[in-house]
């Protein structure tokens, strides 16, 4: 609500009071033109409350790091950058309200953030109507498609299509029998579609799909049927808590002895929450893993900066989106020499960046970030080298448009 | 004897396996006071609830002014001309005394109108005032009902029933919980009302019943065991047996 900045520890009382008076001043003179050289404000809605609070906090830390790095170098064209963090409560309506506030009251120059398909699409809708640049950092295929396309929106996150393509490529083989347990909502369907396409391309065989209700707590009733399908691979296409519970219960039913469990996205924080035993041997995709630092210099630089700013902690996958999303936007603003919307869009479309995980660029037609996809395997407890040493990098699928759907398939002009 | 206002024939009421009322047949003529007595659990309340439409009878028929009441929902009873008071004070506690009676009067004037101003229905105020005057509550009109003294609340309850201008008035223990002074006033009120309408009442105060009633019905274990004028009832051996056997001091 108020224009004070919310840090990781929350705003102090003084900040709030300052914000109140600033807010009052703003209300009194909404028409005052803003002088050049003013601070560049980036709105950052993220679910600080709710089941993804840990991911959200990581996102904030990473985004703040990106802002700090740019400000340390003197800002953009002499202007300081400020991050305005808002709690969207993982609720699309709340996110839309916060985004409206950020645009209408705080007059942000761009919005980065959101951590769920629904919230991301809501923010996209609000920014699209008002011509505000938005860098989305949550996975969705829908947002790439023509219906939700916004020329102001750029997708820094992976999308289910590319994630599943990469994961399938390194797990499915000719003749592999695959069964699917799929959350019955858009994101689940998107992941299933991606896997099915890869399945056909790789010569694997689908032996069955079971849709489960979104947000289910118990998966035991699906297990007997999944087992009776006798697959080599069980693909669990859901996310967050659903994924954690589904994996845990599949393990309880002894499924892991008979089949390989594969998920589209392996989350650092879910692995933390469920423990190494259940996840042991599970393979899945990721946008980022700190262990990348051995191979990629930009990852090393990012990790080191993050460790320095956060008491030695390593950045997580969804957290890294906060960094790459904000940083790529700031790089483009730097190129554009300011915040002029059209110039920044042009700069983003031209941008080639390598800031955390190897080379990336935004594809022109749908503004999807073309980037590498990691395929990870969860380590056995005994094999963990350190507290955060969760995964082994099975493969790194290099950045390539070949794992994206084509522009024409999305209904967009190439 | 004129045609009966209300005639019930062989009515009974069961709750699961429990028979609360069985085979009661009686008819009630206009402008008479009839009392229903009986020991606790005799079925008096059930009888009243059946007569006022709260409970549909399990068996038997009821006719009011010749019209069969089978299937008539409870709220229609007031419109037909049957009104009642309750054993435990049953008013609208947070409304003013005047409002209590006014809203009861409104049931015959406007029930679903959402457009008009309720204050525009001034004739309701007159009716309410008249009913309050009849029970002697004119001076308490603006008080909130829950703050009235017990006796006044009982009177208010009768005013609520009265404003419907019923031909049959069912009074369930109108003097319950009253002191002697209040009881006396209530008796006077009932006598006054009895001049214009048929009254059926349940009471425990025998002296009052004998003085007030034209006729007494005695229920025992859900059955009608006696029906007659006060003298007949007083000398009825069956009634004596029931009451003396109970030895609960009602007689």
């Amino acid at each position, binding site marked *: 609500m108020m224009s004070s900045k919310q840090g990781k520890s929350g705003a102090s009382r003084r900040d709030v009071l300052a914000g109140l008076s600033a807010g009052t001043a703003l209300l009194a003179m909404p028409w005052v033109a803003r002088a050049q050289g003013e601070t560049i404000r980036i709105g950052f809605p993220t679910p600080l409350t709710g*089941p993804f*609070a840990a991911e959200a906090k990581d996102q904030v830390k990473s985004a703040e790091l990106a802002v700090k790095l740019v400000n340390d170098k003197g800002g953009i064209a002499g202007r300081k950058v400020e991050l305005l963090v808002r709690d969207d409560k993982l609720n699309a309506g709340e996110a839309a309200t916060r985004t409206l506030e950020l645009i209408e009251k705080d007059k942000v120059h761009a919005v980065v953030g959101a951590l769920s398909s629904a919230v991301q699409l809501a923010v996209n809708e609000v920014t699209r109507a008002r011509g505000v640049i938005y860098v989305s950092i949550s996975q969705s295929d829908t947002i790439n498609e023509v219906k939700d396309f916004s020329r102001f929106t750029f997708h820094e996150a992976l999308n289910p299509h590319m994630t599943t393509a990469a994961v399938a490529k390194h797990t499915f083989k000719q003749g592999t029998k695959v069964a699917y347990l799929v959350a019955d909502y858009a994101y689940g369907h998107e992941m299933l579609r991606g896997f099915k396409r890869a399945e056909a391309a790789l010569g694997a065989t689908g032996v069955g799909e*079971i*849709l489960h209700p979104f947000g289910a707590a118990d998966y035991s*009733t699906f297990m007997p*049927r999944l*087992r009776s399908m006798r697959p080599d691979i069980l693909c669990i296409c859901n996310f967050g808590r659903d994924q954690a519970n589904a994996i845990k219960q599949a393990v309880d*039913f002894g499924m892991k002895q008979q089949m390989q469990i594969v998920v589209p996205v392996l989350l650092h924080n879910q692995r933390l*929450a469920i423990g190494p*035993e259940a996840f042991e041997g599970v393979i899945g995709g990721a946008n980022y893993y700190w262990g990348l630092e051995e191979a990629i210099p930009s990852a090393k630089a990012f990790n080191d900066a993050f460790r320095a700013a956060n008491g030695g902690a390593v950045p997580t996958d969804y957290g890294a989106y906060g960094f790459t999303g904000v940083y790529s936007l700031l790089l483009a603003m730097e190129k554009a020499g300011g915040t002029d919307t059209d110039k920044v869009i042009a700069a983003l479309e031209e941008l080639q960046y390598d800031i955390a995980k190897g080379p990336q660029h935004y594809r022109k037609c749908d503004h999807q970030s073309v980037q590498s996809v990691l395929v990870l395997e969860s380590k056995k407890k005994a094999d963990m080298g350190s507290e955060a040493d969760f995964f082994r990098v099975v493969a790194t699928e290099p950045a390539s448009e070949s794992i994206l759907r084509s522009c024409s398939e999305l209904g967009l002009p190439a | 004897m004129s045609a009966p206002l209300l005639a019930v024939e062989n009515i009974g009421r069961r709750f699961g396996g429990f028979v609360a009322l069985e085979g009661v047949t009686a008819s009630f003529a206009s402008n008479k006071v009839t009392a229903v007595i009986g020991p606790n659990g005799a079925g008096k309340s059930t009888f009243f609830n059946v007569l006022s439409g709260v409970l549909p009878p399990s068996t038997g028929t009821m006719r009011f002014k010749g019209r069969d009441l089978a299937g008539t929902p409870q709220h229609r009873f007031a419109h037909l001309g049957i009104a009642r008071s309750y054993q435990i004070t049953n008013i609208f506690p947070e409304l003013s005394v005047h409002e209590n009676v006014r809203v009861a009067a409104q049931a015959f004037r406007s029930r679903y109108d959402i457009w008009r101003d309720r204050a525009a229905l001034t004739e309701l105020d007159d009716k309410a005032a008249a009913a309050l005057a009849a029970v002697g509550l004119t001076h308490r009109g603006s008080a909130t009902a829950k703050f009235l003294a017990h006796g006044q609340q009982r009177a208010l309850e009768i005013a609520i029933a009265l404003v419907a201008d019923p031909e049959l008035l069912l009074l369930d223990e109108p003097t319950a919980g009253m002191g002697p002074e209040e009881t006396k006033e209530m008796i006077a009120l009932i006598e006054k009302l009895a001049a214009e309408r048929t009254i059926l009442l349940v009471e425990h105060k025998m002296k009052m019943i004998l003085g007030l009633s034209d006729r007494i019905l005695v229920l025992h274990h859900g059955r009608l065991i006696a029906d007659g004028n006060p003298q007949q009832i007083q000398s009825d051996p069956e009634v004596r047996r029931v009451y003396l056997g109970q030895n609960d001091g009602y007689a």
Partner: protein
Amino acid sequence: MDAELIAMQLFSGVALGAILIMVALGLSIIFGMLGVVNFAHGALFMVGAYAGLWVASLTGSFWWGLLVAPVAIGLFGMAIERVLIRPLYRRSVDDPLLLTFGLGYVLVEAVRIAFGSDGIPFPTPPELAGVADLGIGFFPIYRLFVVGVVAAVLILVWLCLEKTRFGLIVRAGARDPLIMRVLGVDIAGVWLLVFGLGVGLTALGGVLAAPMRNVNPEMGSLVLAEAFVVTVIGGMGSLVGAVVAGLLVGVAISMTALFAPEMATIVMFALMALVLLVRPQGLFGKPGRA
């Protein structure tokens, strides 16, 4: 579809119903006796799971968690009854419902503050890990254990209600609260115990569910909705109803999972809507209480 699979599915439905019964039974006992719809019931389920986790991690044994947590949370429930709910008995029946609704918020957030908003791993106790061959298929030993515990608890609760003075009072009170006053029973004390018992049961459900579902602050939200469905289908206040409806809902979910899995959640609510249309007071409910 072969018979073995259907039999297996039926069995998973029963096992699923077991947890539902634990939660719904507590909800139903509290309602039947106190007339209070406990909206914090799901949150207390979650608090029970966390308490179990905490005790287990302190003592290094799941068994201590299973034993201590329900009792401790039951006592906590009694404190809630004493401090927050008792002042409301003379008021509208809606007030305890509203209060417990707010209490649910507070409990969830308190747990987030104490244990973080992420889930915490709760591994299956090693003694009960692995699967058993039931002849019709493989089933986790832990889930068999849960069915056993729930059955034992049901027998205990039944004995307590049928054979003790406390049970007599509770049964009489559920039928007609006025009777207790007539009998000169210390109602306040009984209500306190009943609330504690109900909360203890849901906390036990929470501890039992923890190794299957992991522990997180939101785990009670869905459970609350499910428990409502079960109690309403069974008839609020009816203990037999809670048990029968718990099994019914569990089996309905597992059978739907076989034929139209994505409908597994909706079927619960549809079943409830159906029961309410045909029999508003629930399968075993008494119309008068409605």
